[in-house]
């Protein structure tokens, strides 16, 4: 479905990101500029008998530094790692927006902070304590740490959000759904400001075993659209936006970075792992229709591009179906080649990247693309980024279960 026929325009006034190629937006964007590889040997937990030994883990994030100024949320430092990433990126986005916190009109603010899986590192520790270490009890904060809504609640508490506060959950489309829903809430007058995005941190022994059993992880690296691609690489992180109605942003003289023009969502309704072309194509079409744009208007597309054999081929075909002749002229890249696959957080991080690309008129590359798969024959910006005038961008998120969400960004209203 798409939400059309409504009135209020929605702009982005703040960006936040925590990724393996940079733990703030400027650092991440510098990482994109350098074509930095965020994938490295797994570390920080017992590797045991794992066969997949790489991941896009975040190494240089210290919650005691990033969250020490938190005032209202007294237990943020005791929270799960996924809540830390959400809190840090929300903090960055809200600071950039210049909004006063706690919010002056708190019931008119939403915090929609998704997670594909919630605090699975906490559950890993809990089960190790109970079943291996034979502890008599789990840590008393175990429940509050792992619930999938805890990141949303932590963000809401710290920044004084009293309007709609909850998490979305749709695997790799989680962040895009959160962003789209926040946009629609503002568009339809339910709130004026929305802190939206998602966070993920699930790289531990148990989750690695679960992914390993799916046989979709690469032992070598994440090489989207490349002939040699052989699976994705798990990442972690968060990506958040501050959305506002145009009039709310104008009234306070805020800098409007971009307009969130289009949102399209569909479900393949077919298979848990094998995507089809219809679902992704229709989601892209609905997003364009919602934005009142034609396929030829899009200058840069941040692909879902997971580097699984099936996704990249299917996504290429879906892009060709939607964009027709323009597909060949479209700059497309998968930044997962750099920051890995941060699962539910992907759409949030990639939305931030789309907006930075518009700001700089520069498209980030797909690194590791030495030789393209003959079935993936579009312009994926191999290995080095490119200067290009960028007015409109699209961000694709296609999840397990066939859950698709697409965002379209354009210049801020004149």
């Amino acid at each position: 479905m798409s939400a059309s026929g409504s009135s209020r325009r929605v702009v982005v006034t703040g960006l936040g990101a925590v990724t393996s190629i940079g733990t703030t937006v400027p650092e991440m964007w510098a990482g994109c500029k350098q074509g930095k590889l965020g994938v490295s040997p797994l570390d920080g937990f017992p590797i045991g008998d794992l066969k997949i030994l790489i991941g896009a883990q975040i190494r240089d994030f210290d919650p005691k530094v990033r969250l020490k100024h938190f005032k209202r949320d007294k237990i943020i430092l005791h929270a799960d790692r996924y809540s830390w990433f959400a809190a840090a990126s929300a903090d960055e986005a809200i600071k950039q927006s210049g909004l006063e916190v706690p919010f002056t009109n708190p019931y008119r603010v939403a915090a929609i902070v998704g997670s594909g899986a919630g605090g699975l590192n906490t559950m890993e520790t809990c089960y190790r304590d109970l079943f291996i270490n034979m502890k008599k009890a789990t840590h008393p904060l175990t429940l509050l740490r792992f619930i999938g809504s805890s990141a949303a609640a932590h963000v809401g508490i710290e920044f004084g959000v009293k309007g709609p506060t909850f998490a979305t959950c749709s695997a790799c489309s989680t962040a895009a759904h959160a962003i789209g829903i926040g946009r629609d809430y503002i568009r339809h007058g339910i709130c004026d400001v929305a802190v939206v995005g998602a966070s993920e941190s699930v790289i531990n022994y148990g989750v690695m075993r679960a992914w390993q059993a799916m046989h979709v992880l690469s032992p070598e690296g994440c090489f989207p659209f490349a002939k040699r691609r052989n699976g994705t690489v798990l990442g972690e992180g968060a990506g958040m936006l501050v959305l506002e109605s145009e009039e709310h942003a104008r009234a306070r003289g805020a800098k409007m970075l971009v307009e969130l023009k289009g949102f399209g969502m569909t479900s393949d309704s077919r298979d848990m792992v094998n995507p089809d072309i219809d679902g992704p194509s229709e989601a892209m079409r609905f997003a364009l229709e919602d934005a009142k744009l034609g396929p030829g208007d899009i200058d840069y597309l941040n692909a879902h591009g997971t580097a699984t054999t099936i996704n990249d081929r299917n996504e290429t075909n879906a892009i060709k179906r939607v964009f027709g002749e323009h597909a060949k002229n479209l700059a497309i890249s998968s930044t997962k080649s750099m920051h890995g696959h941060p699962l539910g957080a992907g759409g949030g991080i990639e939305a931030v990247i789309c907006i930075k690309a518009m700001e700089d008129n520069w498209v980030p590359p797909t690194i590791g693309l030495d030789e393209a798969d003959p079935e993936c024959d579009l312009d994926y910006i191999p290995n080095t980024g490119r200067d290009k005038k960028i007015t409109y961008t699209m961000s694709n998120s296609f999840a397990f279960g066939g859950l698709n969400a697409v965002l379209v960004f354009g210049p801020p209203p004149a």
Partner: protein
Amino acid sequence: MDDVATKIIDILKKHMKEPRDDIGLDTQLTDLKIESLDLAMIVFDIEDTFGIEIPYNANEEAADFKTVGSVVDRVRALIESSGAAAAKA
């Protein structure tokens, strides 16, 4: 103060927002500004330290836990009974 009391006071201090050095056996717990979540973490730490289980429900008034001394007494009793249970087994 014996070992049990010292350890318990250390645990209390660890979980206090503003740790104090004047905590004694007759200090009222209500004076320590311990919130409900902190109390759950304190109970967990005490259980872990002494290898005991403290029957406690956050929904009920903790009548046993008025002062630091009452906590120490209760923990000492639980250690003794668990030791007795272990001896029987």
